[in-house]
């Protein structure tokens, strides 16, 4: 399983590196949302600083829909997924590989986006360890739940609307927890014992386990 996961992650990242969809489309999209959020809200520095973590994670959540959709679409082009089945690639490995690839892309996107948030909204960040750890587990959770739901919704003609409908409510605890733990980190009450961080860890572990167990059944069905 681990070997297949590595193989899949390497392949997906290489494809992503070549096609540059994340860089050329998803990242600009995330930036646009950051800008229009400011239009919708008050542009006084106080407001934007206060809501910066929430807007950041909302932008990430929206962007993740495109990333996970693409991760699954790679295998539906030219029926490559059937190919994987014929080659005997382990389904848990496929899942973990795709989660890894999406995770890497989202994490890099978050790094760039964070710079954008600091410049555009101007929050002060104190608790870096909490910021990084929360981001890590939140991203694992979003990637795991996302890859799984993207596979569930694949094959549907209404995939573009079905995926957000399924994914956003499921990942809402991540949005909440990541936002809150970042608020703590930004407001210098940061500690690694933050309950929100614990919630993020629980979520990511649960969804990784569910995916590793059930991904095969979704593919086989």
């Amino acid at each position, binding site marked *: 399983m681990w070997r297949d996961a590595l193989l899949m992650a390497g392949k997906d990242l290489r494809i992503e590196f070549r096609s540059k969809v994340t860089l050329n489309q998803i990242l600009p999209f995330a930036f646009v949302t950051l800008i229009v959020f400011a239009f919708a809200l008050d542009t006084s520095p106080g407001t934007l600083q206060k809501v910066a973590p929430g807007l950041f994670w909302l932008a990430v959540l929206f962007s993740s829909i495109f990333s996970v959709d693409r991760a699954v679409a790679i295998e539906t082009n030219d029926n490559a997924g059937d190919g994987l089945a014929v080659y005997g690639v382990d389904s848990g490995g496929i899942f973990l590989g795709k989660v890894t690839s999406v995770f890497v892309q989202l994490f890099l996107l978050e790094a760039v986006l964070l710079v954008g948030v600091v410049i555009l909204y101007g929050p002060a960040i104190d608790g870096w360890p909490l910021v990084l750890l929360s981001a890590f587990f939140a991203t694992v959770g979003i990637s795991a739940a996302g890859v799984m739901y993207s596979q569930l919704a694949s094959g549907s003609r209404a995939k573009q609307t079905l995926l957000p409908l399924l994914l956003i409510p*499921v990942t809402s*605890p991540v949005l909440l927890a990541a936002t809150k733990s970042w608020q703590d980190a930004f407001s210098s009450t940061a500690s690694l014992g933050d309950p929100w961080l614990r919630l993020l860890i629980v979520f990511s572990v649960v969804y990784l386990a569910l995916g590793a167990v*059930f991904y095969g059944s979704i593919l086989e069905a």
Partner: protein
Amino acid sequence: MESKRYKWTRRAIGIVSLLLVAATVIFGLWITPPDVVQGQLVRLIYVHPPVAWVAYLAYGITSIASTLYLWKRTRNMKWDLLAASSAEVGVIFTALTLVTGSIWGRPAWGVWWTWDARLTTTALLFVLYLGYLALRRVPATSHQRAVRSAIAGLIAFVDVPIVHQSVVWWRTLHQGATVLNPSLSPKIHGEMAMTLLLGFISFTFVYAWMLMHRYQIAGFEQKILDIELDQILEERLHEPGMESMQVELSPDVEQIDRHSKV
């Protein structure tokens, strides 16, 4: 096409639920006294918590049935149909929970909606199972649909405690206790307690009746599919070498696909 016993049980449950609901309404609206603190508003307590209980019960049944389908040793199309039926009834009751909660909240706290843990969780639950029903409408073979929706149904249920916990923290970490809790534990008059119990029982019966009916409809739809399938199978078997049996393009396939959306 349906067993006599199933039919009569369903009818009996239907009649009992009608009587029980009528009794609940009569007791709730006229016989019980108004509350000292809440006044007339207390009458909503005979419907709101029972309806919410049924919603959770329905999703519980959906999860159990989904698990039974996913587990290979107990795998049977019936579990899938049961899960779907229960989820649909559950969505109806969740909607009612939200509506009655809102109607209660307006005079009690002056707002239609409050970001209380229970309310927020219920709202997300509503959306999660709407998604479940939407996923079921995606054209697929019955096994495919069963596996996919069973997984989605199970995940939605697993998600409930996570959502609830996160919302509880969200509220408690930043602003005191929830609003609903104090109003849920008034000193209950004997007659009122009885009526509340009656409410729980009667709506559970209503759920049972609806579930049985919805499940039967799902069974009928499945049967119609099976019969159509047999007919096509017959045609294919008796006319070998027949032209225009194009698997991908056959208009028959399109037609049947439409029926497969239970």
